[in-house]
């Protein structure tokens, strides 16, 4: 700790930060533009000027940039010195010379850092009388709007986009006072993380294009802390609602998880909630059509169904909350509850869970991944499967070059200097996947079939073990050289990381990853293993240890149940349609709770309208085993209800189980924790509903929320009482404690004078550190550390063979190719995301295509060979698809897109034959 003196007040601060960060961390107001906690300092905007004095006697002092001056013991500065104040006002005046008269029609207005800083510096009157310079805008795709006139040339956008996110199609052009930030021509921004520009840009140049379609000011949004539902990483988000629809998603800082950034799927996928297709009323199948019912009728009907059922089963879902899954388990009984995933995924996730639990390598949080200085990725195309992790790994590759800078005495936050030292240096990242990935440009790559990749992993594990005895000899064989290089890089790293997942459905790949982690952990306790999980609650569902869909089908086939209750799940996406039919069509009664129509709701007898993440409270368990609470942002129009409430009411309607007495989320959690002790820490994920701040609930609406007495006046001039919230300490109101709530309950970041998202600074215990009171979330998995060396179970493989088994002649292996926009079910409903979903295709390596006499765009017949590997009995499918040449695809493989909205791919990997369509 160092003592600094600010305006004659001594303060204790951390020494390894800039003065600006220190001042902001102390809660002092000091304007800035070009600095960002995640990007560091470059000293470009000159907005953060303060006076620095030599000692007590020095009265003249000198102006310095706070963001470029390191904290030093005894340093004396003044923020309020008239000269500093005048200097900062002058800077703003300069920046505002050509600023357009746009605030009323600018989407940033009301949460604009430029507005805040202008007010803070006191610049109020325009003296510049000449003409303003103007720019033309560009069309940057469906997510980000562009209005260049508003730019203040702080360079934050390009620094984030190019240096942090590693994409190069956004740049600074031209010169002098005409510097232009955009692309060389109109077109969709290539980065999957471009949406963060909306928050990075301190002005209204880059704004959320999806918000524009239903524009609402921040002060008018009813907001709540939530968790992203579009992959398994569980990034924290803030949901904003107005007039019953979700208006936008912004990042919710969690120092352990997503930090300051989200991916575009997470930020722009929310519009599925607002779709007109939403199921908004209970529906009953009658004469081949679904007719609407009232909630009472539906519950009565459900009660009758349950009473008359001769055996019923419940099918849970990895996209539903723990509470909803548990409520279903309670309704049908633990022995009749099945995980809503196929046997294969069930096995893979189970294995993954075992690996994480056993350790000794620990599974890191996303923030820890950013600190990993060497990484091996086995099989996962992270940008398309677990996007935010790809961004974290990218930062990991900067760790070793940063070490060079540290040795030269340069602090990490001195961004420009660090980059000057590091140049293009990157730490080791090895990516072994079937197809090229978006991280390839900073990685060493290895291509092959899933088996090849697993073998590669095993070979690396062995090489690491060998390297602990003797240095690895160089090898002339390319593959062996790569294996040795990988092993060396991982073994010599401070915090090595192995990443794998289930996207290629290969158990041996998971085992290989575990072996590598194991080999590393023997000599380095900092070694880590991270597994990407596909859905928001994949791991949570797995921890309930319910059997897979195949067992559910078995139960129905045996006739021991005739009623099925499906929770937020489309079984036809999970399994072979024959298996889904076995469950759904053989059962006499099918009840489905969901929010959007699907093949499953189409065959249901009774459909209940479930609430989406914005309309429910619950808990998800992310890939790291972190339980995170998401809170309801708004009360949907009746009779839409959160799933666990429907199920509790169903229990009441049929006199079943203690669930009938559940009044709120705490009751469900209490019952869950006592039934399933593994979920013990889940209650700590957020304070319970009885929590109060200064005796009051925490308001979801900013204190400037407008229109309360007019919003609903068209329906009835007498304003209704705001709805109660029995489930959380938050209120659907603007009244409540004006204090900073604990991390898990922050509905939005706002602080007096700080209307933009930069107010996050005020909620952290130190800049870019944890939120005050700790980052939210409770970890359920902590492996025992390695005290006694244990031997992993030997999986039997030992060959160094780097080719999988040869396929039969004329048959190739089809592997799934994932798309950040398209492969995930819910986000594909969002119109903006839908624009970027690719059309179904078949991908081949150009050489393979040439050998088959096929050309790009040609229609190709793909037939799933009946001799597919065991357990892959897709319905003998045939597809006619346009050929896409993928130069990065390993030769001998065929790529088919996974999970696209209008395309049911075969279960992969599968053997397929390829021929010209006649």
């Amino acid at each position: 700790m160092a003592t600094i003196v600010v305006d004659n007040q001594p303060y204790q601060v951390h020494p390894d930060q800039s003065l600006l960060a220190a001042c902001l961390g102390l809660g002092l107001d000091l304007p800035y533009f070009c600095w960002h906690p995640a990007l560091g300092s470059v000293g470009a905007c000159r907005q953060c000027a303060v006076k620095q004095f030599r000692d007590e006697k020095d009265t003249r002092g000198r102006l310095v940039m706070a963001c470029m001056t390191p904290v030093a013991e005894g340093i004396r500065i003044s923020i309020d010195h008239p000269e500093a104040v005048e200097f900062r006002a002058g800077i703003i005046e300069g920046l505002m010379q050509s600023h357009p008269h746009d605030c009323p029609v600018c989407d940033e207005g009301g949460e604009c850092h430029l507005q805040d800083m202008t007010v803070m510096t006191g610049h109020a009157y325009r003296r510049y009388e000449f003409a303003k310079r103007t720019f033309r805008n560009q069309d940057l795709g469906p997510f980000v709007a562009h209005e260049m006139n508003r730019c203040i040339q702080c360079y934050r956008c390009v620094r984030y986009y190019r240096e942090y996110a590693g994409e190069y199609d956004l740049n600074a052009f031209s010169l002098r006072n005409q510097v232009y930030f955009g692309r060389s021509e109109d077109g969709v921004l290539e980065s999957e993380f471009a949406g963060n520009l909306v928050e990075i840009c301190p002005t209204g140049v880059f704004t959320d294009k999806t918000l524009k379609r239903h524009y609402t000011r921040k002060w008018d949004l009813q907001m709540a802390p939530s968790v992203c539902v579009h992959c398994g990483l569980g990034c924290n988000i803030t949901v904003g609602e107005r007039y019953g629809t979700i208006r936008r998603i912004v990042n919710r800082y969690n120092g352990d998880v997503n930090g300051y950034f989200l991916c575009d799927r997470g930020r722009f996928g929310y519009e599925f909630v607002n779709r007109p297709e939403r199921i908004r009323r209970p529906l009953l199948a009658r004469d081949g059509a679904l007719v609407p019912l009232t909630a009472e009728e539906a519950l009565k009907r459900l009660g009758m169904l349950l009473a008359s059922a001769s055996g019923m089963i419940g099918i849970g879902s990895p996209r539903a909350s723990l509470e909803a899954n548990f409520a279903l388990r309670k309704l049908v009984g633990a022995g009749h509850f099945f995980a809503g995933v196929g046997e294969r995924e069930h096995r893979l996730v189970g294995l993954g869970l075992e690996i994480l639990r056993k350790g000794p390598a620990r599974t890191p949080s996303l923030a820890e991944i950013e600190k990993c200085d060497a990484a091996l990725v086995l099989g996962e195309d992270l940008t398309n499967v677990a996007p935010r992790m790809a961004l974290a790994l990218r930062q990991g590759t900067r760790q070793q070059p940063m070490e060079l800078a540290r040795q030269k005495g340069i602090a990490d936050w001195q961004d420009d200097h660090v980059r000057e030292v590091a140049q293009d240096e990157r730490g080791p990242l090895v990516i072994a996947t079937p197809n090229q990935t978006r991280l390839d440009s900073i990685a060493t790559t290895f291509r092959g079939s899933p088996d090849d990749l697993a073998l590669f992993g095993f070979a690396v594990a062995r090489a690491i073990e060998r390297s602990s005895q003797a240095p690895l000899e160089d090898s002339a064989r390319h593959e062996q050289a790569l294996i040795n290089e990988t092993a060396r890089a991982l073994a010599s790293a401070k915090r090595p990381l192995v990443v794998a997942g289930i996207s290629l459905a290969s158990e041996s790949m998971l085992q290989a990853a575990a072996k590598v982690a194991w080999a590393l952990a023997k000599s380095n306790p900092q070694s880590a293993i991270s597994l990407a999980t596909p859905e928001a609650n994949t791991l949570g569902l797995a921890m309930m240890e319910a059997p897979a869909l195949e067992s559910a089908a078995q139960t129905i086939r045996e006739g021991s149940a005739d009623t099925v209750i499906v929770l937020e799940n489309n079984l036809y996406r999970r399994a072979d349609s024959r298996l889904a039919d076995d469950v759904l069509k053989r059962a006499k009664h099918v009840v489905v709770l969901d929010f959007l129509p699907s093949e499953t709701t189409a065959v249901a007898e009774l459909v209940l309208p479930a609430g989406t993440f914005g309309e429910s409270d619950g808990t998800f368990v992310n890939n790291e085993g972190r339980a995170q609470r998401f809170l309801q942002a708004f009360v949907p129009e009746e009779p839409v209800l959160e799933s666990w409430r429907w199920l509790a009411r169903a229990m009441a309607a049929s006199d079943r189980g203690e669930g009938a007495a559940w009044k709120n989320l705490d009751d469900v959690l209490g019952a869950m924790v006592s039934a399933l002790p593994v979920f013990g820490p889940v209650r700590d994920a957020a304070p319970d509903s009885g929590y109060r701040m200064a005796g009051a609930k925490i308001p979801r609406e900013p204190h400037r929320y407008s229109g309360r007495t007019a919003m609903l006046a068209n329906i009835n001039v007498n304003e209704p009482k705001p709805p109660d919230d029995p489930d959380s300490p938050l209120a659907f109101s603007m009244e409540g404690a004006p204090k900073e709530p604990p991390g898990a309950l922050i509905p939005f970041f706002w602080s007096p004078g700080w209307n933009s998202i930069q107010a996050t600074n005020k909620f952290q215990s130190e800049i870019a550190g944890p939120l005050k009171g700790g980052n939210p979330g409770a970890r359920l998995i902590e492996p025992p550390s390695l005290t006694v060396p244990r031997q992993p179970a030997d999986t039997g493989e030992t060959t160094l063979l780097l080719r999988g088994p040869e396929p039969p002649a004329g048959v190739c292996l089809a592997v799934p190719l994932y798309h950040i926009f398209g492969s995930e079910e819910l986000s594909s409903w969002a119109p903006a995301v839908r624009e970027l979903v690719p059309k179904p295709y078949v991908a081949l390596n150009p050489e393979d295509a040439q050998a088959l006499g096929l050309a790009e765009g040609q229609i190709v017949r793909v037939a799933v060979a009946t001799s597919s590997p065991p357990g892959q009995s897709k319905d003998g499918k045939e597809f006619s698809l346009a050929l896409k040449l993928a130069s990065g695809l390993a030769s001998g493989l065929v790529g088919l897109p996974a999970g696209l909205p209008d395309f049911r791919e075969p279960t992969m990997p599968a053997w397929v034959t390829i021929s010209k369509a006649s």
Partner: protein
Amino acid sequence: MLSLLRTFWEILKHTFRRRLTVQYPEEKPYLAPRWRGRIILSRDPDGEERCVACYLCAVACPVDCISLQATEDKNGRRYPEFFRINFSRCIFCGFCEEACPTYAIQLTPDFEMGEYKRQNLVYEKEDLLISGPGKYPGYNFWRVAGVEIGGKGKGDAEREDPPTDVRSLLP
């Protein structure tokens, strides 16, 4: 006795004074143009809706009786999709008019809004929008704003240079 007479005298004197009572409603009082009564939404000199749906009036309103939703036409011109004032709540403070950056919302010298049913005091855009510029002729926000709308491109606003040519390196 004396006091009684004085009373009669006073009354007699008043008979010749100027009358202060106004025979409302037959006779209308004079109200200054800045009088704060019934709120209207005005149009710009080109006859287009002035309101740009910025929500500033709504947020300034101390009783929160204004609600609206912004939308855009295909040329990027923003306007309110609906605009509602609940006059049964309005206290005619005029903050909304003060907050409005476009002179769209104005209070008028009209107070004759009595209703038997409170619901009738909820005014929608159709009830609020008038056909002229109200108290402030001449001003058109879009002529000074930097955004493009149909018929006005970049650099066409008042005191704007033509758009920069990003590809030119000439000074």
